[in-house]
């Protein structure tokens, strides 16, 4: 992470500001210092990811319930774009519906995390996610 241009940038697509804030706090608490760019809707996030002037390695945190498009549509758009298709995608949502989970994996999601309502386990999940973020090798090309 010494080379800022090469460092992984975390793109969080989450329409609930509270959730976004909680997720960010817990990521920070887990010791992850990467940039976090947050978007409240799908189209802005897509615009940022697909038309980036200086493409960087991204890690995408995606909430499935978005106001303007479904998380699934967003996911398939990300996975069909050359810039972003190798970016790991962590689906983070309140839904633990079996079909939804399977669908996300089919579309190329790397991890699927249900936002637990039990705060302790939620914080724990986010921290583990942070640890995960700090160790993964994001492919760079």
């Amino acid at each position: 992470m010494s080379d800022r241009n090469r460092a992984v940038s975390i793109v969080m697509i989450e329409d609930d500001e509270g959730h976004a804030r909680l997720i960010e706090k817990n990521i920070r608490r887990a010791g992850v210092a990467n940039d976090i760019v947050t978007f409240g809707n799908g189209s802005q996030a897509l615009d940022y990811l697909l038309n980036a002037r200086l493409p960087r390695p991204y890690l995408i945190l995606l909430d499935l319930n978005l106001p303007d498009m479904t998380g699934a549509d967003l996911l398939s758009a990300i996975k069909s774009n050359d810039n972003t298709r190798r970016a790991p995608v962590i689906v983070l949502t309140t839904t633990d519906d079996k079909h939804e989970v399977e669908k996300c994996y089919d579309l190329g999601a790397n991890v699927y995390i249900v936002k637990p309502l039990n705060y302790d386990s939620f914080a724990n999940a986010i921290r583990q996610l942070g640890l995960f973020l700090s160790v993964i090798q994001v492919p760079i090309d």
Partner: protein
Amino acid sequence: MKRAEPSLTNLNAALAAAGVAVLLALAYGAHVFSEKTESLAKDVARLAVAEVRISGVYTQVLEAESSQRGYLLVNDPNYLDPFRAARARGEENLAIAVQKLGQLNIDAQGLDALREIVSKKYDELEKTVALAQAGQRDAAIDIVRANHGRELMSRIRERTNAELDRLATMRKQWIVELQDSADKMSVADVLGSVAVFLLAALAVAQQFRHSRALASAQQNLAAANDALEHRVAARTRDLKRANEEIQRYAYIVSHDLRAPLVNIIGFARELETAFATVKPLVETACDEPGAEKALAEKALAAVRDDIPEALKFIRSSTSRMDALIAGILKLSRLGGLALQPQAIDLDQLARDCIATVAHRLNGAGAQVEIEGRLPSLVGDRDALSQVFANLLDNAAKYLSDARVGRIVLRGRQTAAQTIVEVEDNGRGVDLKDQSRIFELFRRAGAQDRPGDGIGLAHVRTLARRMGGDIAVRSDGRSGSIFTVTLPNDLRTFLNHEPREDRNV
């Protein structure tokens, strides 16, 4: 249609009755007329016999006379042969004639008179023959010459003719009657046949109309059925849509309610964390000598009691809300649960369920028993397991402290349904609560056991999803009996379930 049906039936019955009546009348008439005809014919025959016999009497007298005359003329005894037999035969003929007339109830006095004269004639003849045989032929001829015999003879002729005329008149009249009777019989025959034919034709026509009416009624019925089926299908479709709507609604509501809840829980926890760092500072600051006393007391009360209490209530309420939302979500998912029908031995399934809730049962010191053997059916294993595990769990949870817990399972099967009862001797369910307890989040009786009011709602949703239902019977004191009704074959229920693609 409904009105035409009985009138058709009545008309047909009337036709049949009329036909029977005509046939009976015909048979009776034929019988009467043929009896009459036969009796008339016999009478005519008897009369004819009497006439012949009477003629015979006269003929025999004539024969006897000519035989006598011949003998007197040529004195040859051979001539006497007819003479000898004539009297007896005449008597016989007369007797038969009298008998016949007697049978016919006809006055026979005329014949008595005839017999008298004939007898006199034979006396005269025998006398002359006797004289001739005794050699007094002249004396005999003299008697003949006296014309007494001739007189008798003409009287016999007159009397015979009179009798024969009388009888012939009668016979002619009878023959007319006979003819008449026979005519009437054939007329009755013809009329009856025509009537029967007409009735038969009418009945056939009626039957034809009836069949046509029936066919058209059947068509109408089929059309009505079609319409009904359409309506039922449409209603079922609407219901299914409404049901799906509710499920989606429940899903969305529970899902969307969870989002803010995540924030409330999360930031409450942030607050706790932040507060944990602030609290010792506040306490230190309050302990400092320069601190204003009243303010310090308030601040200490806030950090020691008020804030922790508020956080505690936030936490307990949010976790309760979490449970409620989870309940709604669970139920909304059950409604759309894909069932997998398979042959299931309920007895074994119930034993497995008993084993699953054994810890709670043992904890409550309760005995569970299966009365007889539970039947087998075709159903969904998971759903059935959940139903029985919930019911057993429920029974174990609400046992009475006053007595040793006892839970009994029993089952029976009708042609289409399997009925399983779970009976306990627990605290029972008050009558007013008996329908409430199957509703989501509703509980009854003393609220001294943990629970969210989800279990029985869950059971009812599952039972209904499988085409069955659940009910409870209880006196509210000495226990309750939960009765689960299920189709014997889940497939028949699922096959009747409308599918989207079939209707549109």
